[in-house]
């Protein structure tokens, strides 16, 4: 589904990703772990198409098509979804209005009929249950005054509604207490399916107790230096990143 080859990317002239390779097949859940500054969020943002991240080398194929020239909205329409590490607060725009606009843009692209307000609300109400959020969320301004946990749950809610083919979760566990973490994980697990893939980016192993990955990768200095099964995450938890750093011959 997703093939990343020799990806190099810079932010404000500083190279963050330095030759990253990764392949994700449909139905798989990949965890990308790594210390701060290793390039985890850069990877997420490059895949979602943030323009301030400049790709200097390499290529990314999504369903066999070149992803990099696509606009962020085109990627969303193709089925890529990024759950933000820091969801943006937008006063004056209700979650319902915003999400309906997004969903209908995507449906239109897929050749589906656009949903009217009534059908949308009926559908959204069902999906809200998955993340255990109140219906009032729909009429509140997008993320405005939300707690950290509410924002993250709202991200998962949006993911469930937009029904992506590839979901990228950027540190969705950060700032969550254990109850919120479980709700988020349940939402993600509910979406696991043979034709959908996920990339779960996280600093800590904790989330992976609830979202069990098929593959775990360690990102260091902009490259994947080690890959393995779910056991790798436990090793990291126990031995820390220094162990991988020493192993990879990188400066600690």
């Amino acid at each position, binding site marked *: 589904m997703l093939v990343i080859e020799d990806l190099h990317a810079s932010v404000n002239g500083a190279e963050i990703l330095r030759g990253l390779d990764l392949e994700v097949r449909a139905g798989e859940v990949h965890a990308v772990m790594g210390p701060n500054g290793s390039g985890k969020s850069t990877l997420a943002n490059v895949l*979602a*198409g*943030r*323009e*301030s991240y400049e790709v200097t080398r390499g290529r990314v194929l999504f369903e066999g098509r070149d992803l990099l020239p696509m*606009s*962020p*909205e085109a*990627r*969303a*329409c193709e089925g890529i*979804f*990024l759950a*933000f590490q820091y*969801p*943006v607060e*937008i*006063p*004056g*725009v209700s979650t319902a*209005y*915003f*999400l309906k*606009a*997004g*969903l209908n*843009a*995507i449906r239109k*692209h897929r050749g589906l009929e656009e949903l009217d307000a009534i059908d949308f609300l009926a559908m959204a109400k069902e999906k809200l249950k998955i993340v255990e959020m109140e219906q009032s969320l729909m009429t509140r*301004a997008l993320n405005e005054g939300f707690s950290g946990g509410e924002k993250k749950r709202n991200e998962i809610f*949006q993911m469930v509604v*937009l029904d992506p083919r590839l979901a990228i979760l950027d540190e969705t566990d950060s700032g969550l207490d254990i109850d919120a973490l479980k709700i988020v994980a349940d939402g993600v697990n509910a979406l696991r399916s043979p034709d959908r893939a996920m990339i779960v980016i996280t600093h800590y192993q904790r989330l992976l107790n609830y979202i069990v990955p098929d593959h775990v990768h360690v990102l260091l200095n902009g490259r994947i230096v080690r890959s393995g099964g779910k056991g790798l995450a436990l090793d990291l938890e126990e031995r820390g990143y220094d162990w991988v750093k020493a192993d990879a011959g990188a400066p600690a």
Partner: protein
Amino acid sequence: MVAGAKEWEGYLADFAQLASNGNTPAPPWMRELRRTALDRFTALGFPTTRHEEWKYTNVAPIARSRFERAESTRNGLTAERLAPFTFGEQGGTRLVFVDGRYAPALSALPDLPDGMMAGSLAGVLTADSTALEPHLARYAACQDHAFVALNTACMEDGAFVSVPAGTAVPKPIHLLFVTTAPEKATVSHPRNLILMGGGSRAMIVESYVGLGPASYFTNAVTEILIGESAVLTHDKLVEETDGAFHIATTQAQLDRSAVFTSRAITLSGALVRNDTNAVLAGEGGDCTLDGLYLLHGRQHADNHTRIDHEKPHCSSRELYKGILAGRSKGVFNGKIYVHQDAQKTDAKQTNKNLLLSEDAVINTKPQLEILADDVKCAHGSTIGRLDEDAIFYLRSRGLGLEAARGLLTYAFASEVVSRITIAPLQGRLDRLLMARLQSLDGWSGASGVPA
């Protein structure tokens, strides 16, 4: 200023006609008022950009043009034609003025509460002007304002609304000023007087629309007296044409514990100047001045506000927001005067601007003058562009770039619009903003033609 004699000729002729009782037989005090105002106007002349209060707003195009008083016809105007600008049958009282004159056939006067008056100022002047004499031209001063002086000299008609003490008017009162401008450049000087008795409550919408292709000049003055503990909401809407000049002063006087909420919303017009002034003349008064200006093409809008805290324990809040596209220019000047006696004043002023193009310009200036020593005053202004993070967030969910920008711009404006308490008005503005901002590209183009 000296250059002006020729510029005024037209107005002097208009005045001569009014003074000779051409249309309205005026009482002696009224004639005196006009005469004094005309003298003041000719002494002041049209302001130039050397005048501190007009530094960024050049009214030379108004001074240069020869605007004629409109003919007293309705130019075949029908209720259907006005329907988009009214609130339909549930709207309550509606006073419609066409080219400056009251149009009873287009107005709606459902059962008014006992003792309440709502109608044509000219009508009241002709019938029995005793209710007007103590108030008319007592609040909006001619002294330093040429356009107020000109209005006072040349006024013919406008709305007179008087709500008796203790009366709550349940439905909004809509004052609708329509300029037909079919071919000749015309001028009107609408003059409104709103008297709120002690403990009364009302909502007034004052809106200005243009229909025709010709240039015109609206020079309006609204005076408002709010009695003790009375509550008034005043929403002003400027929807003039791209060929229109709109200069207006809203002057409110608040008694003890009175509450005044004003919104000045500018949606269109070639040159718009709103002066919104409130005097907190009794203890415990509360005033909110909000505004929104939505500019594109080569439009120019200038909002001047002035709040006088004359007495202790009053509070004032001010939020003006501007969205500027194309080559438009905006001005915000907000004065707060805290007089020596006005201890425990609580005043806050905010002006936020969103620039959507490289060529749009905003001049914003807060002016606080504080003579009392125990007060809380704050002000702040911002000028910015759309937040890139927010744009990316919306696009990552499937919204196109233009849709994302439009939605964020709408959100910026909605902070002011969402405060409107009159549901049909809020709904109409909401739809209007949505429609306009959805196609920002077309809307913000330098062509000056709204999409």
